[in-house]
């Protein structure tokens, strides 16, 4: 597939990430010069341009590889950015293949809608220009990550995504909580990226030695079956563990950090300190799925690594269930949505985990869920944003009865809630159903059971949120005189609502599949669909029973569970454990002693030598009596001894 005959847009597909970058530079440098509104307009326009470009790239790509066939990866544009050694370099380029096109479209669309929404939401905020600059930086780095053709390019954009989320979470930098949350987010993801980086170097090292003649860092090399066989045999030299399994686990560590999988999930709930559109874009639709995308991109390596996929499946499943349980007890609307995001990503992860090279059905299901989830989760967050904007609080117990006050927001929110709960006509149903089916079909019954149970839990906590916020009557005078969101905020809501419905009907399996494998299984479809819907309805009913109307029955139930309820409410005290580890152990028991050691022992050694010199010199002062003749005597004595020695030596 020669580059020349690619369409114009494909050849310069670097425009997609480049547009937000240019507008970031423009807005960042000239934010102060021209008016606030202009910054918003420039930023939104650039992302719109990038969205159009992404659409064109998708159209042209699927014109070359029609949906039915198996889409190859194209690298229409790439330059050698940094050369370490002759065959070892970072090439920055654009890789176009089904999942990267999918992600491009999703990211640009959601980003455009969030930009539009933000122009309304952030009006009058201090640092309006700064906000849009950072949002553009995020969009650039996310797109850079998606189109990456070289794993190190992906790592670089990975870090930039981490940076922009740090900047955006800490946007209200005058609030200590926001600052702490941004710090926590960056450091936790940075810790995870460490594993990712070591995984990359490990792959690069063995790739460099084994795959002579090829660039070990390029995805094309890493996903080509030929090179994977060569790598499969190698052992990584670390306690005899195989190369691919170790590299896969390390890379998964990076993915788990960014997608907030179980051990490294603590930063996502706190990341809600940032402005709500940020949470919508970054902590729901795009950044957190970067981990899933990474695993999908490296699926060749993961599949060849065998038991690494199992780890992915179990971590995904556990996070899915764990987050859903916590979500049921949260009082802050954004925290509930954050944990629900965690749970949904858990779904995507274990969908990837259960699939394998033999039957990659889960791969397609996971991507499908990623596609649909981006829309309805963004909608949920933006809806929540509209609610918070109106009631100036994010405590769900202070809201209530907003159905009449904010009809359109209520409608779109309901659509999204139904979709996430997995009710038939909405997109959530199709993608979640596919995931459950792939788990069942690949024989991972345990994972399937957890998935089903979580589907019920998801429906429960989402409708708990829905009933407490929209149904019943306002529990607080703030909620009393809430008013409908401005138009510029409503358009994205409606658009996302439409997308949340349509997304389900897209024949996804034709577009995205891994290797020649078939799209979706046919048999067992109806059974799983039925089970999923029943679980969802049960959840809804139970939450209606508890929370509709006065919602007093909930307190009674909570009281009965008591201790368990408290523990779950505090997120199983995992945050406290982390704080304990960092502050008590790392700072108190490692950094402080090392600092003390440096100040007293190493520094002390130098001062000691100074002190010895002083003391010994004071010791010799008794020789200086001031008597000239004493010196004379020493002189004569000394010269005699010297003469003796000279004379004896001569002897």
């Amino acid at each position: 597939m020669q580059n020349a005959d690619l369409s114009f847009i494909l050849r310069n597909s670097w425009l997609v990430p480049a547009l937000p970058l240019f507008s970031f530079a423009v807005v960042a440098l000239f934010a102060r010069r021209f008016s606030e509104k202009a910054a918003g307009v420039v930023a939104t326009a650039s992302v719109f341009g990038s969205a159009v470009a992404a659409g064109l790239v998708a159209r042209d790509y699927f014109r070359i590889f029609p949906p039915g066939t198996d889409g190859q990866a194209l690298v229409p544009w790439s330059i050698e950015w940094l050369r370490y050694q002759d065959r070892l370099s970072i090439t920055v380029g654009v890789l176009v293949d089904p999942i990267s096109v999918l992600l491009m479209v999703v990211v640009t669309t959601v980003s455009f809608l969030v930009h539009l929404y933000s122009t309304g939401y952030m009006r009058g905020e201090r640092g309006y220009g700064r906000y849009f600059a950072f949002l553009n930086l995020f969009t650039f780095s996310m797109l850079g990550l998606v189109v990456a053709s070289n794993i190190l390019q992906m790592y670089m954009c990975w870090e930039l995504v981490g940076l922009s989320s740090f900047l955006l979470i800490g946007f209200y930098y005058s609030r200590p909580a926001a600052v702490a949350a941004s710090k926590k987010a960056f450091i936790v993801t940075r810790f995870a990226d460490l594993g990712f980086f070591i995984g990359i170097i490990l792959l690069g090292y063995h790739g460099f030695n084994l795959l002579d003649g090829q660039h070990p860092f390029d995805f094309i090399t890493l996903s080509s079956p030929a090179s994977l066989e060569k790598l499969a045999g190698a052992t990584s030299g670390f306690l005899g563990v195989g190369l691919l399994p170790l590299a896969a686990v390390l890379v998964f560590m990076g993915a788990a950090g960014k997608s907030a999988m179980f051990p490294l999930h603590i930063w996502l709930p706190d990341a809600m300190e940032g402005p709500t559109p940020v949470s919508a874009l970054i902590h729901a639709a795009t950044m957190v799925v970067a981990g899933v995308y990474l695993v999908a991109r490296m699926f060749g390596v993961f599949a060849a690594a065998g038991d690494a996929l199992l780890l992915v499946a179990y971590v995904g499943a556990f996070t899915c269930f764990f987050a859903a349980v916590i979500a049921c007890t949260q009082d802050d609307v954004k925290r509930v949505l954050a944990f629900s995001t965690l749970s949904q990503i858990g779904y995507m992860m274990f969908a990837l985990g259960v699939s394998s090279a033999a039957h990659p059905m889960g791969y397609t299901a996971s991507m499908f869920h990623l596609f649909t989830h981006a829309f309805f989760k963004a909608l949920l967050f933006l809806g929540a944003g509209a609610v918070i904007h109106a009631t100036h609080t994010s405590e769900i117990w202070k809201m209530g009865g907003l159905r009449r006050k904010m009809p359109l927001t209520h409608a779109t929110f309901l659509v999204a809630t139904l979709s996430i709960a997995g009710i038939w006509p909405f997109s959530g149903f199709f993608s979640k159903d596919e995931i459950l089916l792939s788990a069942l079909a690949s024989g991972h019954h345990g994972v399937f059971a957890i998935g089903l149970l979580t589907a019920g839990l998801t429906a429960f906590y989402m409708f708990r949120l829905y009933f407490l916020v929209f149904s019943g009557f306002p529990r607080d005078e703030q909620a009393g005189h809430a008013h409908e969101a401005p138009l510029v905020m409503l358009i994205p809501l409606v658009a996302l609502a439409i997308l949340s419905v349509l997304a389900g009907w897209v024949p996804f399996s034709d577009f995205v599949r891994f290797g020649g494998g078939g799209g979706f299984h046919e048999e067992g479809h109806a059974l799983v669909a039925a089970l999923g819907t029943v679980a969802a309805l049960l959840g809804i009913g139970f939450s209606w029973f508890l929370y509709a109307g006065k919602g007093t029955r909930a307190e009674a139930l909570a009281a009965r569970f008591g201790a368990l309820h408290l523990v779950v409410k505090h997120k199983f005290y995992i945050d406290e454990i982390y704080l304990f580890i960092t502050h008590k152990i790392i700072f108190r028991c490692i950094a402080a002693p090392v600092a003390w050691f440096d100040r007293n022992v190493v520094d002390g050694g130098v001062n000691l030598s100074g002190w010895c010199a002083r003391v010994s010199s004071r010791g010799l002062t008794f020789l200086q009596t001031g008597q000239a003749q004493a010196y004379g005597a020493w002189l004569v004595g000394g010269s005699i001894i010297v003469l003796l020695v000279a004379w004896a030596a001569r002897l």
Partner: protein
Amino acid sequence: MLEVLASNPPGVFHWLVLSSLLFSIGVYGMLSRRNAIGVLMGVELALNSGALNFVLFNRLLAPATVDGEVMSIFIVTVAAAEAVVGMAIFVLLFKQMKTVDMTQASQMRH
């Protein structure tokens, strides 16, 4: 007795013993005297024995040349110069401290 005297004239060793004896007495003078001028006398003695040595070696080892004697002339002049400076210092010392006792002049201790 005359033959004995004529037969063994004082060889180099004898001269050297003499000059080193004088030198040692000079050293004794320098170190024991309390009076600064006494010390200077000791120095003169030592220098004198040095000059003697030069002439001694010149005459006994290289009679033809005069280098030894020239050196001893220089020694004498240097001794003179040294004596002048020494005396000037002692005069000042005396004006400052009313005595030339060496043991008192130890202000340069530290």
